[in-house]
């Protein structure tokens, strides 16, 4: 990506780690009727990277992740993932509430044709810190715990890329903190994580890199520091005068969003 930046993205070329991309996205366009939910979006993701797809509601975040997950077919563009599978965690928990935590995991492990079903179920229960709740029906779990089961299912096949669509929506601050701890741990272990959010602080705090979407267009692709620098350059003011959220709003305002 450092060699071939996406059209509308700006970032400092030196900031990219020199690893091979695990996911390459180019020229994605998706139209619903005359409306473009996504237009010409492209980026690359490397092993262990934590990428935040950030943008207001309706920006096209879910559309982008759904295309990456292979659920929605793009009208134009390509997604190539040279290494391993892609795990997908939908915005709303996709779980059978009448089944227990372990039964949900076991069902999807069987459907995913995981080699060692019981082994990976146990592993996921441990990783999601839900071993004690394994025999509880999902309907009895808190939203935070449901979200962790939801994520654990996405991780069953040990994907090299994990897609999380607004994973923190509906969680209280403590549940959020635990969620991000869990996600950071995954990235630390080498899983590439791409998550979407409309929460600027979350994006700033928990990601290595930002992909800013508005009205289906990728407006920025780079680190938080790079975003600040861009905004500073455009406004001519010094960085210390604004926090990240203000910088982000200014950035969008400057581009007419």
């Amino acid at each position, binding site marked *: 990506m450092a060699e071939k930046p996406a059209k509308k993205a700006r970032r400092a070329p030196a900031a990219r780690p020199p690893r091979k991309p695990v996911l390459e996205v180019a020229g994605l366009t998706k139209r619903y009727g005359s409306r473009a939910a996504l237009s010409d979006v492209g980026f690359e993701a490397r092993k262990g990277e934590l990428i935040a797809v950030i943008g207001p509601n309706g920006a096209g975040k879910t559309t982008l992740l*759904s295309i990456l*997950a*292979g*659920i929605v077919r793009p009208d134009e563009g390509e997604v190539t993932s040279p290494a391993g599978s892609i795990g*997908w965690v*939908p915005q*709303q*928990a*996709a*779980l*059978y*509430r*009448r*089944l227990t935590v372990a*039964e949900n995991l076991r*069902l*999807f492990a*069987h*459907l*995913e044709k995981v080699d060692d079903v019981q082994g990976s179920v146990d592993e996921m229960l441990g990783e999601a810190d839900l071993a004690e709740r394994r025999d509880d*029906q999902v309907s009895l779990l808190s939203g935070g715990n449901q979200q962790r089961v939801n994520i654990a*299912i996405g991780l069953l096949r040990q994907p090299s890329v994990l897609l999380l669509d607004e994973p923190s929506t509906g969680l209280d601050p403590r549940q959020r903190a635990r969620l991000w701890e869990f996600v950071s741990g995954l990235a630390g272990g080498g899983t590439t994580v791409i998550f979407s959010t409309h929460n600027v602080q979350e994006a700033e705090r928990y990601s290595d890199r930002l992909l800013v979407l508005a009205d289906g267009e990728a407006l920025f692709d780079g680190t938080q520091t790079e975003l600040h620098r861009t905004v500073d350059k455009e406004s001519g003011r010094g960085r210390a005068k604004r926090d990240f959220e203000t910088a982000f709003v200014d950035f969008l305002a400057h581009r007419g969003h």
Partner: protein
Amino acid sequence: MRWLLLKDLQILRRSPLLTALLVIYPIVVALLIGFALSRGPEKPRVAFLNEVPQDTPLSIGGEDFDLTGARSSLCDRIECVRVHSRAEAREEVESGEVLGALILPEDLVDKLEGVASGVGEPPTVEVLVNEEDPLKAQLVDDRISSLLTEANLRLSRAVSNVTLSYLDLLVSGGDFDFLGQSFNVLGLQNTERILRSARSDLPKGSFEREAVDQVIQFAELARENLGFADSLLSSVSQPIQVDKEVVNGGSPDLDAFTISVAATVTLMFVTVLLVAGSLALEREENAFARLTRGLISPTGLLVEKLLLGVACSLLVTLLLLGGLSFLVHINWGRTPQILVAILAGGAAFAALGAALGGAAREVRASSLLAFMISLPIAFISLVPSGTVGPALFSVIEVIRALFPFAPGRDAMESALSSGDLLVPLLHLAALTVAYLALSRLALRRFA
């Protein structure tokens, strides 16, 4: 697919209320409908006075009629109230205790035997009817006249048999017993033969020869025409037998009809509700997108729901039939046909359920839709022809053909009696394919 099926069964098991409703509700509805349909009008009470002396044998043309048997078969169809005099019979009718009275006169048997041997007037039976309740009076009238028609048919068949044997004697000759003495009857054939041999001895052109010629011609003509009467008589008695079959054939079919309605109602509710709800649940739990992301194709998911519906409905319908067999006769000798009918009907209802679940996309909405569609379809499919105008009935027939209830019930009835299964099975198969195609379309906007 196996894991998804197990999952669905597990979810069902976790919802005991829903499962109980799904099993109990259709069975209760089915039983209610079954009883309502099978309980026809009540047996009318009829006073019965038999003036024929006890143990009078009735024999026509060597065939003995079983009078006691005839009486008990009569009292199977109407509730016989025994009375001992005409006055008592009249009283019972007037007081409304009975709807009518049937009086068999003393000379019934004598007159019948007279008719059979070609002498005397036919006997009359007396019927007294209370017209207070015209509907029921009509019923008594109908029952009694159908009984009499039946008796008449049996008698006339016996009479024509006797007549035929006399004709045969007349044409072919033979021995004839009368008042304990045996007579030899020459017969027209022999008469003709004897006359022909006698004729050759007479001189040509003589008056005697011409007279004998005329007698021969007459004998020949009579023999031929009587031979013709013979076949005419037997052909007249032939349709009588067929008619009688139809008159008597009612009750076993009513059972098959009733059972088929009960079984199809059960099959319909269990399958349509279960499949519609279960498919809608995949979306409600947001699992559909996750499942169709390489784990199973949308068509595969539909097939899984179809299997779920067929398996559960097979179980519940067999349960119902097993329960019903305590009340009515079910021909378990036709178990393979019954299973085929349940499976084919179940598949068509499951496909309909999938289409409804796919269209409604929510469990509650799909259950409501399933009820709203199933109930009227079931009732429409049970409207007998002739009870509504012909234009409306042809609309009803189109609606019937578009939903699996009518062909499902046809298949079930054919399986239970010994009807033709092929046409309803083909109809059900076509509906299954059509509804699966519709549900596949509905799944396009499912994710």
